[in-house]
Structure formats: C-alpha cells, structure tokens
C-alpha cells in the first residue's frame, strides 16, 4: 500500500497531469476501501461486507478510516521525484540543442525555438530558464549548447571555462531597453536616472518637485516576477550598485500586464510607468533619460539603443562553446535573420541591426 501512496504522490506533483492523478488517487482510495471492507468481513462474523450489505453507518466509518489512512500514507511518502518533462512525439529528431539561462530571455528563446522547429523538424531545441548565472555555469560544465545571458560573461567565468576546456564565444542576439512613460499632458520632459530612482524609491512624491504640476506621483510597475521589474530595480532604482538595498516604494502599483500600465498611464495624469520599449504605444509620452545631466537627455529608440546612447538598455547574449558549427550555427543565423529579429521586436525587445 505504501507503494501506491508513493506512486500517486509523484504523479500528483506533476502539475501537468493533476486531473489524471486525482482520478487515479480517487480510484485507489475506493479500492482501498473495498479491500478493507472485504477483509474486515472475512475476519469478523458479518455475513457480507458492509458495502454489499448496504450498511450505511458501517460504510461511513470505514470510508473515513480509509481516507485517513490514505492521506497519512501520502504524507509518509512525500518524495519529490523529478518528472522528465521531455515530451516524446512522432518523428524522432536527429539533432538536439540544449538552451538554458536568463529568465528575461526565456520567452524570446522559446519563441525562436518554436518557430525554428516548425521549419526544421529534425531539430529539437529544449529551452529552460533559471537565470543568466545558471546558464553560464551550465555552459562552463559543458551541459548546454547555448547559454542565454542578460549580462556579459564575467572574467572569472571565462577563466573557469578555460579550465574546463570551454572557450565561450559571445553573440549579441537582441537588446533590451526600458522606456519611462508619463501621461501625454504631463509637462515633465526629461529626467535623470537619479530622479527616476528617487521617484520609485519614494523619495520624490510630487510632480512639482520635478518641475511639473502640483500632482501626487502614482508609480506603476510590472509585477515582481517580470524580468523587466528586476532589471529596472537593479539598474535604475539601485543605479547598478550591488550594495544598494533600496527597493520599490510600498505604494508602487504592481500591474499584471503591459497593457495595464499603458492604459493607466494614458488615462492618469499623475502616473509614471516603465516598460520594454517594444510595448510602448503612441498614446503615452516617453521621457528622455540622462545618465547624468552633463551627458544630455536621450529618447529611447532602436537607433539610440543600438548606438549605446540610451542609459536604460542592455544587450542580451547567447554564449556558445567555441565558434558555433552545424545545427547550432544554423540556429544562430536564423536568430540574427530578419525573421528571428522580427520575433525580438514582437516581444518588446530591440532588434540588433
């Protein structure tokens, strides 16, 4: 019986199959009950098992008993075993590409992989997230073919790679820029990074402190699970300083979607928001940002981002072990092709020219 509990637990933990697992468990508990009931009948003086007799009270008692035992068993063998999510399907692919890394890029990488696999059915690309560090570490130990990273590889990582005989080769596959937006009627035109940081950390609370009208500032942000949120926190609010532990002001509105941010900024003259450059529509006003006043204010655009003038932008990288060859080279060529870069644009990133 302990076996059954174990099997059903592992099944239940596989979220994709939760329905099936529940039916399985349900059936199991029922059979458990029948068996228990029959056994009980066997060793007692009853004529027939309660469930055949239709002895309702007795059945109830035993049913509860079985359920308690079942749940206890489940608790006893709560072992999380990994369920291989690799879904096998029709024709066997010839080439496998392992792609792992940055959570910011995981959607992008998935789209590329899906599109590419539709045209090349002999290639199977598996994409996983985990963060830039995870991806690069996996590349160092040579367990992935392509590592995604939203930051450049560090010198110590390059050295560690060489020790393992891995030569990391960098490919810039897309750029990520964040535009700061306000209501079209807001007179504020330019902000420095420091000012944006002060706004979001709660140190500035009124537009009049920034040369605007006397209105409270309503801060809008993406949810904490978005890569944009984390990038904004690290590079704008903390100004890239790792020691800084400043976080978003508690009254920052965390909206679940880009549309939510655009809609609120479009309608609300008090609001300030930020989002990936590709999501910005004409209905909102984009603020020119200066890293520091002396460097001048720059509007975000594909050109300024590619010329490295706009401060809230970063490159997105893919790293390979040595110069890519064969399938991997073909895949990277596809990514940098107009079709691949169109996906970059569709997902709100900036294409590489």
């Amino acid at each position, binding site marked *: 019986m302990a076996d059954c509990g174990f099997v059903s637990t592992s099944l*239940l933990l596989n979220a994709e199959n939760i329905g099936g697992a*529940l039916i399985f*468990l*349900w059936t199991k*508990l*029922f059979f458990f009950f029948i068996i228990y009931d029959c056994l009980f009948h066997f060793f007692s003086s009853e004529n027939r098992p309660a*469930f*055949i*007799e*239709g002895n309702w009270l007795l*059945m109830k008692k035993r*049913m509860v008993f079985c*359920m308690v035992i079942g*749940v206890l068993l*489940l*608790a006893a063998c*709560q072992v*999380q075993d990994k369920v291989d999510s690799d879904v096998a399907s029709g024709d066997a692919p010839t080439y496998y590409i392992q792609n792992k890394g940055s*959570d910011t890029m995981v959607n992008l990488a998935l789209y590329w992989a899906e599109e590419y696999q539709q045209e090349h059915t002999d290639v199977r690309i598996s994409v996983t997230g985990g963060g830039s560090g995870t991806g690069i570490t996996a590349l160092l130990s040579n367990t992935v073919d392509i590592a995604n990273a939203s930051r450049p590889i560090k010198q110590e990582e390059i050295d560690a790679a060489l020790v393992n005989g891995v030569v990391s080769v960098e490919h810039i596959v897309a750029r990520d820029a964040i535009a700061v937006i306000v209501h079209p009627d807001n007179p504020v035109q330019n902000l420095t990074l420091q000012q944006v940081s002060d706004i979001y950390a709660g140190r500035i609370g009124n537009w009049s402190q920034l040369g605007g009208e006397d*209105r*409270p500032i*309503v801060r809008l942000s993406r*949810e*904490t*699970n978005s890569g944009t*949120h*984390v990038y904004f*926190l690290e590079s704008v609010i903390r100004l890239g300083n790792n020691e800084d*532990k400043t*976080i*978003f002001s*508690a*009254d*920052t*509105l*965390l*909206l*679940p979607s880009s549309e*939510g941010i655009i*809609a*609120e900024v479009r*309608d*609300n003259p*008090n*609001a300030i928001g930020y989002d990936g450059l590709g999501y910005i529509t004409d209905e909102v006003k984009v603020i020119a940002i200066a890293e520091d006043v002396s460097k001048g204010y720059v509007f975000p655009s594909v050109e300024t981002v590619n010329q490295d003038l706009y401060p809230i932008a970063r490159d997105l990288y893919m790293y390979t072990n040595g110069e890519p060859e064969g399938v991997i080279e073909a895949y990277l060529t596809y990514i940098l092709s107009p079709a691949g870069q169109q996906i970059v644009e569709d997902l709100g990133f900036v294409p590489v020219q």
Partner: protein
Amino acid sequence: MTGKKLTPKEWMITRSIQFSGFSSIIFVLLILYFLIAQGMPALTEVPLKSLFSVRWYPIESYFGILPLVLGSLVVTIGASIVAVPLGVLTAVYIAEIAPFWAKEILKPMVELLAGLPSVVLGFLGILVVSPFLRDVLHLPTGLTALSGSLLLGLIAVPTIVSISEDALNNVPDTYRHGALALGVTRWQMIWGVVVPAARSGILTAIMLGVGRTIGETMTVMMVTGNAPVMPESFEVLFMPIRTMTATIASEMGEVASGSPHYHVLFFIAVVLFVFTLIVNIVASKISFRKMNRSERILS
C-alpha cells in the same frame, strides 16, 4: 434494503452514485493536504516576525503577509457594503413587489450577471470604473480598493439575489395574508413579516456572496493596483491595495518550486482557505439552524 440482494446492475449504480458523493470529500481533503504540506514549511523557513511584518516584497525576501490579509479584508468588507443592500433589496423587489413581466425580465438578467466572466468585469473596471472614480473623487489613481469593492460587489449581487429570492418565495402565503388581514400596509408586511421570516435564507445568501468575493481573483488583480500598502486608516479604501488572491495568482507562475517564496504563497493559500472555511461554516450554521417553535407552528 436489508435482506434484499441487489442485482449487479443495481449494485453498480448505487456504488457509482455513492462514489461520486464521496469524491467531493476526497477532493477537499486532498486540497487541504497539499495546501498544508506546501504551506507549513513557510513557518520554519521564514521567521514568524518577518512573516507577520508589514512589507511584502518577495524577491528581496520581505515576506510580510499582513498587508495582503488586511487588503483582502478591506476589499471584502467594501464589497459587502455594496452588495448586501443592493442584493437583498433587489431580491425583495423581484419576489414581492415586481409585477409578473418585470420579474420575467429581471430574473434572467441577474443570472446573466452571474455568468459574466470576472476578467470582463476587470476590463470594465480598468476602462470605466477606475477613471470615473479618479475624476469624480479627485484621487491620485482610480486603481484602488474602492473600485475593487464596487466590482466585487457586482459579482456577489447575483448570488445574494437568487438565494434570497428563493428564501422569500419559500415564505408561506399564509404569512402575507395574515399580515394583510391585520390591516398593515404592504411595506409593513414585507419589511415586518416576510423578510424576517426569510431571515436565515437571506443571511445564508449574504455569507455565500461574501465567500465569493474573498476568493475572487481576476477582477481584483486588474483593478486594485496590487500595491502591498499596509492599511492604517479608513482612507485605505481610496488607496491601492493588494489582496491575497491577486498575490498568489500573479506570483505563483514564476516562483521557483520549493523556495521559501513558494511556501509562503501556499501559506497565504492556507490563510485564504481558513477565511473561506469560516464564512462557509457561519453560512451553514445559519441555514441549518433549527426553526424555533413559532416558525414550526406557523409553517
């Protein structure tokens, strides 16, 4: 049933019906088990002091759930203030006052409202309710607990109306006749006799409606702003708040399985479960209350 042997076919039918009946108990137990199994580690992984602090920012390990719990309470109370009078009065109108043709239009309309997906209401909230509230009340933003309450009230109204209306219809006509025979006005009859007689049904309706609002997710996630502000005064109704349901919905998808954050989210789910359980227990206590003697004699 004793002594009579069931044919195999009868046996099958009986068992499968019993089986379905028990399945709901099993499901609830299983859900409870998983909530507890995944939620309880939070108590050991996160210091209690931090868990009941006032700052929620999970990616930097601020796991204070108090603003979320109070946020849910604020929205629920706000929604009840909207939904209870509106729902009960609508039910009274439909059951007691409305002419036949109005009843025929109103009842399906209320049911239609019940079928409205909450995401649609949320969009309505973003596009209409919150800009309207911002302009009229001169608020910094319209994405506040108030807009959430108004929309959740709208979600609770159909539940309250249909159950209260049933309760009112179950009041025997002899009550109405008796009251009118004593010379009271129609209003006195409704408010003094019929509504009190249907009291337990109406209270059940209210509790079920409230239960619905506590668990509602999509609408609140879209319109309340989701800022984990600690409610400190009455003004919180006009400020953005973050509810437990919205937190779970928006963060569960991306959280690393087995991390403290993951367990804290399940812990929030346990708290939510306890809340709903309390509401449901109160509702069933009211509806299964034994009728008192006068009610028994009269009915």
